[in-house]
């Protein structure tokens, strides 16, 4: 919601989720990997897809499509995992985000980013840093730290049958 937060121009990594363009601030991005085998962790919400081995470290993988109420990300030629480092409740955490495709790194001036509209995005407005109009296409710039606050992600269920998990994942995504 802090629409005036970005004072200087910054680089953003843009990626695609269900044909829509999204952007992450590049300084939080560590690397981009191929969509490899993910080990599922049972009894957790579906948008938490599981864990991978990133050079000897266990890194959790988040499916933003599921989190945003879309269908599951599937493995394609273009799909990949964006590894990001975020500050989660004061603790540095590495996690991976699934994307249908990674596009490019762009430079945006602060005035190019509009505050997120309160309605119409079907996303929690605090997830969105703003919307940028870049070369004729709209890019939703995501507020990474907000999406990945512990409250949002630590929704690990006690009784984790598939149906329940889905509904709860949706609740957080759509609300």
């Amino acid at each position, binding site marked *: 919601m802090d629409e005036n937060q970005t004072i200087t121009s910054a680089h953003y990594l843009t990626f695609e989720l269900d044909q829509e363009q999204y952007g992450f601030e590049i300084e939080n991005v560590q690397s981009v990997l191929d969509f490899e085998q993910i080990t599922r962790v049972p009894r957790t919400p579906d948008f938490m897809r599981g864990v991978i081995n990133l050079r000897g*470290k266990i890194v959790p993988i988040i499916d933003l499509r599921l989190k945003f109420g879309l269908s599951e990300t599937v493995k394609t030629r273009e799909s990949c995992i964006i590894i990001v480092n975020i500050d989660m409740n004061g603790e540095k*955490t590495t996690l991976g985000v699934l994307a249908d495709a990674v596009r490019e790194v762009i430079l945006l001036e602060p005035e190019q980013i509009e505050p997120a509209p309160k309605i119409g995005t079907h996303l929690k407005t605090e997830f969105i840093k703003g919307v940028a109009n870049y070369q004729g296409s709209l890019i939703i710039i995501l507020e990474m730290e907000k999406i990945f606050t*512990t409250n949002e992600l*630590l929704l*690990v269920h006690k009784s984790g049958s598939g149906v329940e998990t889905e509904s709860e994942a949706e609740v957080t995504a759509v609300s």
Partner: protein
Amino acid sequence: MENFIELYKEETKELLNDVQDTLLELEERPDDRDLIDRVFRAMHNMKGNGAMFGFDNISAFTHDIETVYDKVRDGELAITSELINLTLEACDQINLMLLKPGADLGKQQEKVDQILREFAKLLPDKAGKKSPQKSTVLQKSGVEEKKQTLYLIHFVPPHDLFLSGTNPVLLLRELLDLGQGTVIAHNDKLPPFSEFDPQKCYLYWTIILSTSRDIRAIQDVFIFVEDESEIQIKEISSHGDFSAADFDRVKEKLKQSDQLSFKEICQLFDAKVEEISLQEKEIIGKKAALQQKEGKKDSVDKRHSQESEQTSGIRVSSEKLDNLINLVGELVTIQSSLTQQVLKNSDSQYLLIAEELERLTAGLRDIAMEIRLIPVGTLFSKYRRLVRDLSRSLGKEIKLEFEGGETELDKTIIDRLGDPLVHLIRNSIDHGIEPPEIREQNGKPRQGTIRIAAFQSGADVTIQISDDGKGMDPKMIHARAAEKGLVPENMPMSTSEILQLIFKPGFSTAEKVSDVSGRGVGMDVVRKNVEDLRGTVTVESQLGKGTTISLRLPLTLGIIDGLVIKTGGERFVLPISVVQDCQEFHIQENVQFKHRDILEIRGEVIPFIRLREHFSIGGKLPPIEHLVIAFVNDQKIGIVVDEIEGEHQIVIKSLGKLYRRVEGISGATILGNGAVALILDAGKLIEIAEREEFAAVQNL
């Protein structure tokens, strides 16, 4: 310098612990001179170290305590429980001063003064009247009554004396504090100016000292330098009263000629000196000579040799060890993936190398693990004080017994075991052991016993805390748990199941809340701490006879032997330590309980869970399933899986913050092929299954 200060703090803490242990032993054997010496020496070391690292307040404080113990050593003061209490209090204060240097200086000093005043009260009359802070006054107070002895001391320090941070002037001053005397410095060893090295000590000294203290007091002054220096202490005369004028006269004479012989010096005093040659006693400060001395000097030497044994090791920060373990962990993973690759390609040339690497890695791993192992006894001795203080404040008589203190356990585990053990011991003291009168009524000895025992059982270490107190009443526990809504009232449970209820969150049987226990954050926290260490905790209790709580802990964190199992293409690992049996599982054979998830194995009824259903794993059911029987928390459970892949050494990794609350999974590991496998927590699986089944049955 920071490093040195850390080291100093560490050392002082060790000394404090040593003093505490010694004091508690001393309480039982107040006449043991070795113990008194140990306290004295620890205080002396703390004093010296404190001064060296700028902890002057500690140095001054310990100096005064040292003085008190010197009196004890000389038999002027008896060991009483007040003295021990006070010294323990002083230890706490030193610890505080150590941890928070500079904080609340005024307050600290006040406390120090107060403790010193208390000490002064214990001292024989004369000293009590004088200011307790002035240690020299304390020392001199006894002087007048005792016979003066005249000593001739030669002190030739090594050239590199300054390198060890010793200031000879302070030593001399300390020496003169013992009585009355004179110091003559010899400068004949000074080299020509061109060869002079200001960092070297070229001087040596002759000291003539008249003191009422015995020769040990003089030796103690040189305690830090006695190994390197040449020290001769000769008794000139055992009686006599020397005035300052006498010393001045001798000094004058000595100044005139540097090379006065012993005899000549004696002659200077000859008016009062008898036949010296008869009673010439010579003590040389060299170690070899010291060792020849009999009696209690032996114990001192023993300590010396102990000290030199300790210094043969090195101190390493545990952070470095952690890094080492992590690296070895990675190496183990890489090595096992290499071995797999080589086996796949069956290249005999590389196979040899891979095997060799496997051998080396295993060796490296074992050593890395071993480095971290320390005896649990270090943990136990901490509790003596706790038991002593607490049992007194509750008016109970409790004896603490240890067993198996030499059993080794990973340092991280030991560090993190401290709090849970404190809690368990407090519980035993507070709720377990009855007051002496009640014990007598029940035909038990007045004194209760708490036993802490440690022993190795397979790959695990078990620590047991048992008391011979009143035990637990299962009926009461059940009622209490039902009242708190932890279990349904009508749920039938076995005694051991009921006893396990005390580990449920929100369960606390203490009828009244004391500062000792009973804040409701009790046993569940203990269990959580132990489970975080991949351990289990069980309780046995007999009403009226006592309670035993057993903590079963892995020898080390980080690397475990695991059984890799597979279900629907997903791999999991079960720690070998909980696996009891593996067998094929044919559901059609289980005719006895067609609709129940229980089966009979060798006359035992064992419930089982299907991992596929439990974790909602898809995939086709294989023709033959397998059953792994796990034994955890005193319970057996079968886990039905598709395949058992075999035993592997695995490195435990955390699932991270995001998955912290996942139940039934205790971590993850990276398999040889680079894939991640989750580590199952059998205890939790049982719990979840119980909970879900109970909920399901309620809805029928």
